[in-house]
């Protein structure tokens, strides 16, 4: 089963904690410029902030275009083999998301390798803008939201053994104004 790192950009506030955590875990330094996930903020106004990170595409343009076969894949995770890489940066411009990064002090390009199956940025994100999910679950949150919206979920509070609980139920008279 392959897992995906998914981004919910509308939740991102641009704090760069993901970048810091990545640079520390990946390169052992405090340097957001050495991070395989970086937040783009769009001018003219920071209405949207989008963390850019490798999506581990099944049809990977970076791998297709690498002239030396330096991009390898294992369990659906792509990484750059520093031995084979000639740093031509073809992968950097091939990636449709710009998710492969360069740094002047690092010889070869680098990209997200999902921290070997435990991406540290996900747990560090204070806004839950990063999700790590099994591939088949992607899109399920949106499906749930659309269903819940359709059935007009309501809540009823009750007390059980002194504890306050909430029961959610679908209001069958959908669309009726709340009383």
């Amino acid at each position, binding site marked *: 089963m392959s897992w995906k790192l998914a981004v919910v950009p509308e939740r991102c*506030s641009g704090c*760069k904690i993901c970048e810091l955590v990545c640079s520390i875990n990946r390169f052992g330094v*405090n340097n957001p410029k050495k991070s395989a996930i970086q937040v783009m903020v769009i001018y*003219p106004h920071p209405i949207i902030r989008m963390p850019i990170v490798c999506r581990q595409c099944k049809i990977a343009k970076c791998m297709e275009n690498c002239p030396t076969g330096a991009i390898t894949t294992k369990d659906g995770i792509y990484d750059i083999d520093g031995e084979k890489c000639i740093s031509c940066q073809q992968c950097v411009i091939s990636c449709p998301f710009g998710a492969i990064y360069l740094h002047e002090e690092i010889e070869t390009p680098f990209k997200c390798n999902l921290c070997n199956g435990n991406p540290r940025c996900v747990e560090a994100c*204070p*806004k839950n803008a990063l999700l790590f999910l099994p591939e088949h679950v992607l899109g399920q949150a949106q499906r749930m939201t659309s269903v819940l919206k359709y059935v007009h979920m309501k809540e009823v509070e009750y007390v059980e053994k002194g504890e306050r609980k909430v029961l959610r139920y679908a209001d069958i008279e959908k669309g009726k104004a709340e009383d």
Partner: protein
Amino acid sequence: MPTSKREKRKIKGGYFWKILWVDLDRAEATPLEFDEAFASKYIGGRGFGAKLLWNQLQKGKIDPLSPENLLVIAPGPLAGLYLPASGKTSFVSISPETGIYGDSSMGGSFGAELRQAGLDALAITGKARTLSYLWIDNGEAKVIPNEKLKGKGSLESEGIIKEDLKDEHIKVATIGPAGENRVRFACVTSDWGRNSGRTGIGAVMGSKNLKAIAVRGSKDLPVFDLPRLQKASEASFQSLRENKNFTFWQEQGLMSVIDYVNEAGVMPTYNFREGVFEHAKKINGYEMLSKYKIGDTSCFACPMACGNVCLVKEGKYRGTVVEGPEYETACMFGSNIGVQNFAAILKANQLCDELGIDTITAGNLIGVLMEAQETGMLSEKDLDGLSLKWGAEEAILETVHRIAHRKGIGNILAEGTFGVIKQWPQLKPIISQVKGLEQSAYDARIAISMALGYATSDIGAHHARAWTIAKELEMGMDWPLEKKADLVIYHQTLRPLFDMLGVCRLPWIELGFDEHRYAEFYSAVTGMETTLNELLQRSKDLYDLTRAINLKLGIGRKDDYPPERVFNLPMTEGPHAGKILKREEYETILDIYYQKRGWTKEGLVDEKKIETFNDPLITT
């Protein structure tokens, strides 16, 4: 620097040991190295700024808007690091607004980027021949003339410069037309709406023909023990996330304060005459959430995300988008001038950001004019034909424009409190200000510690040094004056320490973040085991230095009084109706305060103490 010197240092992280000294007269930049004794004593941020200013003042008197004035931009040794809210930078200079020591800290990511460029601070003096911006590429500086930027807005300029340098990722701090026109309360803006707002630093940049500073940095930040920092930080982030108010704070940010202050009866209303605003619900955090907020924004490494991005979707201000409002702006452009339309506040906020004006001062002075018009102290002719009635949105926006461009009445307001008093001496008793800095958005007449905090703040009536109002309201008015003075001094010591380290005070004041953690961060980063008390002592010493600067510039006991109306104008409504501060009581607490600081009855710092700041630790 020779390797041997480096090896001998006991401080093994936190610094690049480099301040970049930029002389705009010659368009030259020289790196200035400093010693570890300097780093240890002054720490960074406003500490570095105050010491460099002190040195500059020894050379002679400084006109704030002359090329001789020095502008220091200094993050701290913790800025840019993996720890909560490490995105603060101090802008320090002799203030054009007050003529004394001035500083204002900016959030966003500018400071973190400056550090990644390999600099501990920037010191800027002189004046560029034509309008220019300073480009710092990984520590290398270049002065780039660009007349195209003339008259351009702050945010617009940020975009132009990013395009000019072909990099969306750089950080740019800019001034708007107000800064260029030397409006004495012009601010500096970065990250599309993060401001170094107070004391008129934007005018200092304007007087130097310096439209902006652009920075790119990619260096590793020096940390002595990264695993130790990481461990301390992870626990810190965790503690913030576990706070029961964490999510609520992310949703509303500082806008949540409005309901609190209004219920407590200390909301600035109608030029600080009242403490309760009858329309508070129309300008509070819930109003923002339900109709205007479209996103959160954070400063560097901050999980609290208190920035609100708001958009007006309908009505005459449709299309207004702004990062804000902060609490201060919502009050100063809301309750303080009788505005009950949230969209109008957003419009004013956007205008001030783009023109580069401090919203606190602007809202304060407009409130003064409104009261003057209402009571007949000024005529409509005096007011340049503007009908400045409470809540008159269009007249307010027009006034803001005139200030930035120094047109008509705007030219008087642009001179700040002192300019207004010079033109209309009769207004002096109705202006809420200390030392020429207009009061920020908390009432002072019911909490004597808040009054003392404003009055003894080293930059004037701003809440950044001491915000004790909540504690005093909680503890009750019968709390001994001794304890209240202690509280003010603790605030004035801890809060400036945050500005020396390069971190934000909000995790501590709003979410109860334990201040002892900063000693752990500092120890991990520098490799010097240091306690919080040791750090606080350095901050307390620095308060003596900023006081010494102010004494040199003519400040004394006579200037350490809260705004006049706290003594003679009771509120008519709310929980504190009828209350005023007693003058004798204030004299007593001021005596106690001086005594606790080790200052004389006239508020003078001991000569021997002052002598300690004449150390040769840095020569400029």
